[in-house]
């Protein structure tokens, strides 16, 4: 009941102060406004479609870029952790810095860890878990010798965990009943003049700091494309390593691969809850084990946010323009409405409502479009190998040229929220313009 309204406009406000009456009246007015907004949107369908298409495409692009970036990051993280100690690693405290056999998990710690990993709130989130006993030493053949990193592994579990077993160049990967077999890189094979079947000797310091040698035969050779790994990594069966290094039932790392890299913090928490009380056990996330990888992902994310910001502004401007134009072109119409009793604020509300409805519609359309296109990429993978030429390494891991987009609920809601905010902000100015329409002036216009 504004005193600034011209007297010509009949008041439809309540004539008695009863709250019920006021509420009913308010509801009636509001529903009228909503009706008006909706009808306006539908009436000028072409204009509405044009306006909303800008927003829809913008949203679709945001969705696509987000899912692809997330997919690429998942890839980086995945490759990185598969080659290393997984998304989550269980080790003896101090192993990360010392790398020494003395800092290992004994049978007691191993069984505690296994029990924690089998717990019902953890087990379903795990894709694969492997035990490894690692040491650094020397590989020597009749021809030459070279320093190496030796990983004692469980072959069938490694197959689930890393891609190494599939990167066989010659011979075959280790099998569970192998004893004196080794899986070596092509670089090492070249240096030591070895082929599948050749014998060579591994020498290292065992758990009692004595130098111990172990005969092994080459079961197969691999190529990762990463020189340090092809020259320096040897995998042998874990039991052989345990006997050789006098470390029965022990492991230096339990590496855990999760179904999704985003689950890391949750799983780490759950494991720590169970294992913090066990001495000699430490639970690590890949972020602690590979800070360079995390930094690369975060920097990329930052670039992405900037991209978002840019789209934000462009889309916002487009929408602003469109809605504003539609308002300015309907001055007469609004003038008539005002003459019929619509208040200033309500006029603004109608325009605002149009903007919001358009935004909501485009939001829906954009999400659908974005998902559809992402789904196509998800099924077939976005193949960037044409752009990348040969193999590519980053942070010590091989980058897969085929990117599978990753859906992340938080990212999707973020993008949707973005668009809603854009739509709302872009509707404010036109709404304000609508409020300023002077009834008498408006009648001069044709429309």
């Amino acid at each position, binding site marked *: 009941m504004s005193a600034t309204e011209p007297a010509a406009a009949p008041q439809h406000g309540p004539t008695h102060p009863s709250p019920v009456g006021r509420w009913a009246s308010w509801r009636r007015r509001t529903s009228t406004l909503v009706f008006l907004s909706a009808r306006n949107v539908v009436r000028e369908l*072409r*204009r509405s479609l*044009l*306006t909303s*298409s*800008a927003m829809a*495409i*913008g949203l679709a*692009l945001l969705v696509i*870029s987000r899912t692809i970036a997330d997919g690429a990051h998942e890839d980086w993280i995945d490759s990185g952790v598969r080659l290393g100690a997984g998304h989550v690693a269980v080790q003896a405290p101090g192993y990360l*810095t*010392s*790398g*020494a056999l003395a800092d290992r998990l004994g049978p007691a710690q191993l069984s505690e860890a296994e029990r924690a990993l089998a717990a019902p709130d953890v087990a379903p989130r795990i894709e694969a878990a492997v035990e490894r006993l690692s040491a650094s030493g020397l590989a020597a053949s009749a021809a030459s010798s070279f*320093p190496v990193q030796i990983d004692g592994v469980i072959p069938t579990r490694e197959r689930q965990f890393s891609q190494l077993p599939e990167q066989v160049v010659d011979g075959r990967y280790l099998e569970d009943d192998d004893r004196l077999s080794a899986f070596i890189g092509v670089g090492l094979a070249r240096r030591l003049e070895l082929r599948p079947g050749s014998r060579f000797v591994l020498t290292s310091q065992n758990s009692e700091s004595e130098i111990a040698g172990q005969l092994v035969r080459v079961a197969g050779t691999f190529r990762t494309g990463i020189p*340090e790994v092809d020259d320096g990594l040897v995998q042998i069966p874990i039991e052989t390593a345990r006997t050789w290094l006098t470390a029965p039932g022990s492991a230096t790392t339990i590496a855990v691969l999760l179904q999704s890299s985003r689950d890391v913090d949750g799983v780490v928490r759950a494991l720590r809850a169970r294992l913090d009380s066990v001495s000699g056990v430490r639970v690590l996330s890949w972020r602690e084990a590979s*800070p*360079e990888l*995390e*930094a690369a992902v*975060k*920097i990329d994310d*930052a*670039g992405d946010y*900037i*991209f978002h910001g*840019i*789209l934000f*502004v*462009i*889309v916002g*401007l*487009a929408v*602003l*323009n*469109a809605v*504003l*134009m*539609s308002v*300015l*072109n309907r001055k007469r119409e609004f003038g008539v409405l005002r003459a019929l009793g619509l208040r200033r604020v309500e006029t603004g509300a109608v325009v605002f409502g149009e903007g919001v409805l358009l935004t909501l519609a485009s939001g829906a359309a954009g999400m659908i479009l974005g998902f559809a296109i992402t789904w196509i990429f998800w099924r077939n993978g976005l193949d*960037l190998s044409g*752009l*990348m*030429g*040969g193999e*590519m*390494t*980053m942070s010590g891991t091989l980058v897969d040229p085929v990117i599978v987009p990753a859906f992340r609920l938080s990212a999707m809601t973020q993008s949707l929220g973005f668009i809603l905010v854009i739509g709302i902000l872009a509707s404010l100015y036109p709404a304000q313009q609508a409020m300023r329409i002077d009834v008498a002036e408006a009648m001069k216009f044709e429309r």
Partner: protein
Amino acid sequence: MAAVWWRIAWRNLWRHGRRTVITALALAFGFLAAVFMVGLTDGIIAEMVETGTAVISGQIQAHDPGYLPDRPVYATIGGDAGVDVSALVTRIESVPGVVAAAPRLYGGGLLSAADQTQGAMLMGVDPERDARVVQLLSSMTEGRAPQAGANEIAIGSDLAHRLDVGPGAELVVVTPASDGSLGNDLFTVSGVFHTGSTGLDLTTAIVPIDALRGLLALEPGRVHEIAIRVSDPWAADSIAATIRARAGDDPPLAVAGWTEYRPELAEYVRLAGASNFIIVGIVFIMAIFGVANTMLMGTYERRREFAVVRALGSSPGGIIRTVLFEAVILGAIALLAGAAMTAPLVAWISRHPIDLSRFVGDFSMAGALVRPVLRVDVDLAGPLTSAVALFLTALGAAVYPALRASRVPPADALAGR
């Protein structure tokens, strides 16, 4: 005649001033965005190339042709006779584009402290020259770089951990010498560095080149490598070729730019180039939609006006021309506005790159070595491409509306149908 049409186009634009301004703003912002995003990507790439090469390897490396890949200690530049190192370095530094060059010597050996022994790659450097070529020596996390003439050694952080030593500690350095004896001497740890790369932090130890020569029993004048810094990393390959040509056969040199010994960096650069293309594309597709939207509505609203013009004798082509001219002027305005917005922003951010270390958490990197910063590198190509894209967008967005506008029969439009 043509001039009139431009004036008319100009006036048309300003009759709907607000709309024009906002549309131009959208385009201008697209321009800003494209230049910025491309600059950002280029900046990240440049940062990557620089840290990849400026940490320790340099942008160009020169060796004796027989040195790589096995790095035998005898394969010094110029063979057993060696070279006049100063003269060679000066000659290399005189090549245009070269900022500095430094000689290096390598040897594999053992470092021993108290009861811990670790294998390491010993790198002998001229501390003063090397500091002009790479950053490692100026970025010690503890202590300082070794001084020429002293038995000092700088080691990686992981190596320091394993040996359990810090600056001031004493290390025994043992390495097989070139004459068959076992070179050995005591060194004092002058500093510890942390690059974040395990390969370097665990296996590398830096000593003054003369000290390593003594250990290896090599004559003065024998070096394994000349590491070279250039002002423009992107020109490394061509500068390497020049150096090789100038050296001729005296001594014979194998000179390689970083694209050869850091191929993964080169790959990433190519990938980034491709993604730049995509980004500019996306930005302007967005802009096209916004602008086309507006123009379509605008021409629709103006159909009576166009009808009158047609009725007065103009051809459909004339309508198209009007709309397109408006688009061109709009583009020009947008470009000016865009340039006006972009230039100061780029200038400012070049001087103050965005530091992400807060967001990247506790990830500490040694000094200025690998900075989690977003840096924007803008050269001429980016803005030029974006400007072209901007005009194309403006024109492209106007094409459909122009065609539609020209096709409306004047009579219908005037009758309001």
